[in-house]
């Protein structure tokens, strides 16, 4: 490792701050710069859909500290990159050179509103969470567009306040992520908490200006005080235009977080894993991956071997106060191979054995650390 190499990390995100931390931990003694777009710096996003929607005092407790790290932090968003000259330009006009670049600009909320249509609510940033919390305070009805984990968490926050909520999606709640078995259990449980699910035959359109409802392809129209779009995320790659680094799915990386451009690495929600063998291009924008990839990108940027795998398949969510923690491949097809406890009672440990010999372990309503789930998934595997 050459000590004088300069490393530039763009994106003050979980992946970005993790990369910065591990660059120093791995012995990088040269210049290190972190470019961030958020005025308040990096913060933790999973609490936004849970504790922040309930409790204003949580707002100031989410920061991801850069304490103890010798890093030059520039809080102005990156607007352009030149990978031939190896420079990045920020909105305030700075041009920063690098020997190695780590792209960690994350993703933004996908929006459904028509151009000029006002009042669409999303949940991606702390500001979004504050706005939604304020609206929850006096809402008497709500619609959530999207029945993925974020949509079901937002619906749970509505239900916890006694606000009747309808969730609309083409697929059943969490089915794309968790499969039909757990989807059915979670949908039934959610219904007893006042969360109604409406399956649409196609895309929902937001109606009103400001937004007051949704229209479905079959002619159904719904209105509510509150309409929240939870329709996934879009990688933040505008600033990479012209570099050939980014496409519709984000920045493609290999198993070492390397992009197709020499000297450029990427980590977190901005990335997708490039197709390999029979595996197609694949996005996996989850917390554990941002940590694993931040570490891996740091090692790769320094030309060091990976400290561990550059992916981590730990995933969790919480629906109506019940936590679901998963280690292993998703989605889960068919019935579980083994069940300890009772799913109906909301306390069970489940495993699915897959055709490829691997297993997935699920803690359903149980407080179970990731290490125990990893051990269970490993011992259930047939190889």
């Amino acid at each position: 490792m050459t000590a004088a190499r300069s490393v530039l990390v763009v994106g003050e995100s979980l992946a970005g701050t993790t990369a910065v931390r591990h660059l120093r931990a791995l012995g990088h003694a040269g210049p290190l710069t972190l470019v961030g777009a958020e005025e308040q710096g990096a913060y933790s996003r999973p609490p936004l859909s849970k504790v922040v929607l309930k409790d204003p005092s949580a707002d100031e407790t989410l920061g991801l500290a850069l304490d103890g790290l010798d890093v030059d932090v520039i809080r102005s968003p990156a607007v352009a990159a030149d990978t031939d000259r190896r420079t990045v330009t920020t909105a305030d006009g700075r041009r920063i050179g690098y020997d190695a670049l780590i792209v960690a600009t994350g993703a933004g909320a996908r929006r459904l509103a028509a151009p000029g249509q006002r009042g669409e609510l999303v949940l991606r940033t702390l500001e979004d969470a504050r706005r939604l919390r304020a609206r929850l305070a006096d809402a008497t009805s709500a619609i959530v567009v999207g029945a993925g984990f974020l949509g079901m968490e937002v619906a749970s926050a509505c239900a916890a306040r006694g606000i009747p909520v309808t969730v609309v999606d083409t697929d059943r709640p969490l089915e794309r992520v968790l499969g039909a078995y757990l989807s059915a259990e979670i949908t039934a449980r959610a219904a007893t908490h006042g969360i109604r699910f409406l399956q649409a035959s196609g895309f929902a359109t937001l109606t009103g200006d400001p937004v007051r409802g949704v229209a479905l392809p079959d002619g159904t129209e719904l209105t509510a005080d509150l309409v929240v779009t939870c329709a996934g995320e879009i990688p933040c790659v505008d600033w990479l235009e012209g570099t050939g680094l980014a496409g519709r799915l984000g920045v493609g990386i290999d198993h070492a977080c390397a992009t197709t451009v020499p000297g450029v690495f990427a980590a977190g929600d901005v990335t997708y894993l490039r197709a390999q063998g029979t595996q197609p291009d694949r996005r996996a924008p989850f917390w554990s991956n941002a940590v694993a990839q931040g570490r891996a990108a740091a090692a790769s940027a320094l030309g060091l071997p990976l400290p561990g795998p550059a992916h981590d398949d730990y995933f969790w969510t919480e629906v109506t106060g019940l936590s679901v923690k998963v280690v292993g491949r998703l989605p889960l097809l068919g019935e579980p191979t083994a069940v300890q406890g009772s799913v109906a009672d909301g306390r069970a440990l489940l495993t699915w054995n897959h055709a490829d010999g691997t297993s997935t372990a699920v803690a359903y309503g149980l407080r179970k650390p990731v290490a125990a789930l990893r051990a269970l998934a490993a011992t259930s595997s047939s190889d």
Partner: protein
Amino acid sequence: MKISVDYPRCEGHGLCADQAPDVFSLDDDAELTYRFEGTVVPDESRPAARAAVNACPVAALRVLT
């Protein structure tokens, strides 16, 4: 360096113990415990402890200097 734990917020994910196995462990009920004696994190464990604070998905850990 000390670390504070917001126990009501802790959900027992255990990603801190993944990052810093010398600093944190979780028992069978996923209750977080320290692996070191006393309340001050030993010098050699501090970088890992800071990484663990960073990796807590519910922001329940804080570094106190």
